């Protein structure tokens, strides 16, 4: 595989792609640095102090309430000097107020909101179960009761900021670019031998087409995986340094964004699953691009076709997502369309948070299966089918 990698890196097209990937990542790091949370250490110190001082959640809430009242009074009395008076936790009095307010909101979230909301979901589900005769809906309500009737071991601690990290690193332009890069790498790899003229000699050698195909496909997948892993590492490092996101053992529900996640999983587990989903997507993109290249055998038509198919599916996904979140028109119909597309389109693995933010199950043969699992299985199947077709096309004896 060493020489296949060398072959790939000997192409100008590939070098340009990798340069653009690097440029994207530098840009992400720069923007996440610019938008960094400078108060994360002060906030962590405040949370640490209160969690050590108060073991009982009610005492802690009361203490935060009292502190907030005190700060409000001081803000009122200081008037325009709130930014000049040195704070206990932050730079000034106003910063103190914001930090305590944030801590109080978090305490309310973990000690009150989660429980209240879950109780409500369970109560509603039980009521719906009595009223509905639809077996699929019944299974879904049962699943809701089962999944939300569990204790989440949240902790009053500084969790770090998850959403800004996601906003800085997971956005649509990058998704399109990354997929386009993977397609271009794959097409280049599979057309290089033909275009250079080495194809016939490669095919007539001892290991022949079979080994060459496997090596080339593996190198393309590794290159795609490398892009995903470097991107994920950048995200983790920037998240840790700039946003205090380093408690990977916390339950995912510790973040309000994932309050309704039905799965009992930690932030670390979620990030691992998210990365695995993206790797699976890269696998399917590589195998689809390889298949198209093996069938077309020419660089430009293969790149164009693969980009139209793969990026096209992503555009469909985005369009349906926007329609589903549009407040006008038939939201339920749009939502339904979006959900069915999310089950079948591998591109949806690029936004895995959608699968984990709510009870996202589908009923297959009277069994509730997480939609993410369905998408992952379908993606894996697509990868296998495309790989088999491309292998057959690559090794077929055709006019050379």
């Amino acid at each position, binding site marked *: 595989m060493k020489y296949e990698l*060398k072959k790939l890196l000997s192409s100008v097209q590939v070098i340009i792609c990798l340069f653009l990937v690097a440029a994207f990542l530098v840009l992400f790091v720069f923007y996440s640095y610019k938008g960094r949370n400078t108060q994360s250490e002060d906030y962590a110190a405040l949370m640490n102090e209160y969690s050590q001082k108060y073991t009982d959640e009610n005492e802690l809430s009361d203490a935060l309430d009292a502190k907030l009242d005190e700060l409000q009074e001081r803000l009122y009395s200081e008037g325009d000097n709130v930014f000049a008076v040195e704070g206990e936790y932050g730079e000034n009095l106003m910063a103190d107020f914001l930090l305590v307010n944030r801590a109080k909101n978090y305490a309310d979230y973990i000690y009150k909101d989660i429980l209240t909301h879950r109780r409500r979901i369970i109560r509603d589900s039980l009521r719906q179960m009595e009223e509905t005769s639809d077996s699929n809906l019944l299974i879904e309500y049962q699943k809701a009761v089962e999944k939300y009737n569990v204790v989440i071991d949240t902790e009053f601690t500084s969790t770090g900021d998850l959403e800004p990290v996601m906003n800085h690193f997971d956005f649509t332009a990058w998704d399109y670019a990354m997929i386009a890069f993977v397609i271009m790498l794959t097409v280049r790899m599979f057309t290089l031998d033909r275009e250079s*003229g080495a194809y016939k000699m490669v*095919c007539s050698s001892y290991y022949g087409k079979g080994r060459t195909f496997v090596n080339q496909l593996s190198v393309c997948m590794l290159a795609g995986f490398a892009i995903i892993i470097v991107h994920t590492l950048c995200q983790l490092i920037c998240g840790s340094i700039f946003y205090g996101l380093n408690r990977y053992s916390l339950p995912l529900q510790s973040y309000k964004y994932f309050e309704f996640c039905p799965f009992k999983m930690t932030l670390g587990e979620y990030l691992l699953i998210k990365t695995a989903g993206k790797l699976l997507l890269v696998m399917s993109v590589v195998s689809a691009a390889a298949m198209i290249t093996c069938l077309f055998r020419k660089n430009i038509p293969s790149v164009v076709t693969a980009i139209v198919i793969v990026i096209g599916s992503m555009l469909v996904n985005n369009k349906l997502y926007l329609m589903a979140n549009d407040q006008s028109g038939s939201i339920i119909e749009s939502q339904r369309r979006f959900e069915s597309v999310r089950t079948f389109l591998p591109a949806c693995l690029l936004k895995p948070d959608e699968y984990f933010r709510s009870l996202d199950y589908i009923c297959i043969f009277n069994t509730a299966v997480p939609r993410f699992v369905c998408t992952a299985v379908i993606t894996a199947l697509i990868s296998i089918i495309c790989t088999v077709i491309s292998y057959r096309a690559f090794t077929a004896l055709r006019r050379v």
Partner: protein
Amino acid sequence: MELVFDKIGKRYKNKTALEDVSLDLNYGIYALLGPNGAGKSTMMNILACLLKQTEGRITLDGSDISAMGKEYRNILGYLPQDPGFYPNFRGYDIMMYFARLKNIKDPKDKTQKLLEFVNLADDSKRKYKEYSGGMKRRLGIAVSLLNDPKILILDEPTAGLDPKERIRFRNIISKIGSDKIIIIATHIVSDIETIADRVILLKDGKVIQNDSPSELVDHMRGKVWLTEMELTAAQDHVLEHTDSNIVKSGDKSYLKTVRDEKPFPDSYECEPRLEDVYTYYFDESGVNGDHADDKI
């Protein structure tokens, strides 16, 4: 070792590339001679297992080569008509890559020896894109020899080479050894005149002659004519007759014609050469008729 072509045919949708080709090849150098489009490359591709014939089969010591797979490819060396490698690879890297593809046990040693053999040892660190046409061909030959093949297929190996490189190529082929079946497809007669043990003439997908160069030349006796002629008259003649060409000797010019009958009353016979065989069989003017059924 016996390589047998048994009634090989290859048809595309509306074109027959090869028809009923039967050959029996043993150790030696075989020249596959024919004009462009005669089916030489198709035959080479079938022999290299890159293309599947539509009729017949090729056997090596009784075994069908298409069923032999790796076992066959292990003894096969193939230099295609327009070989190209990766422009940014060094010569040495190309050799090492193919050494791995060919499952060579000691790739470094083998690579070094072959680069010396084709006189590229000093240029092995240079990038392929910096090589001259001749160097690229020599590297191609070195790659095809990596596995010490028992069957070596060279498709138009001298196309685009200057005379010096052509001589160098001939020297390399004659040094390769006699324990191989070497098949050289070409339409350049001088390349194989001195090195081929047998010459196979291919026309319109059919084998029209298969004999040693000397016997093919002998067959031409009484068919090659010289006529002393004014240069301008000779030039006018060759424009209309593709079986003739101009030969100059000192101040005199002659018209050399390859034809069954004496072309002019003052023409006289001369010693035939292998290139006359080519002119005779592949002349498109129709003066000599179709020789597909001629047997020596």
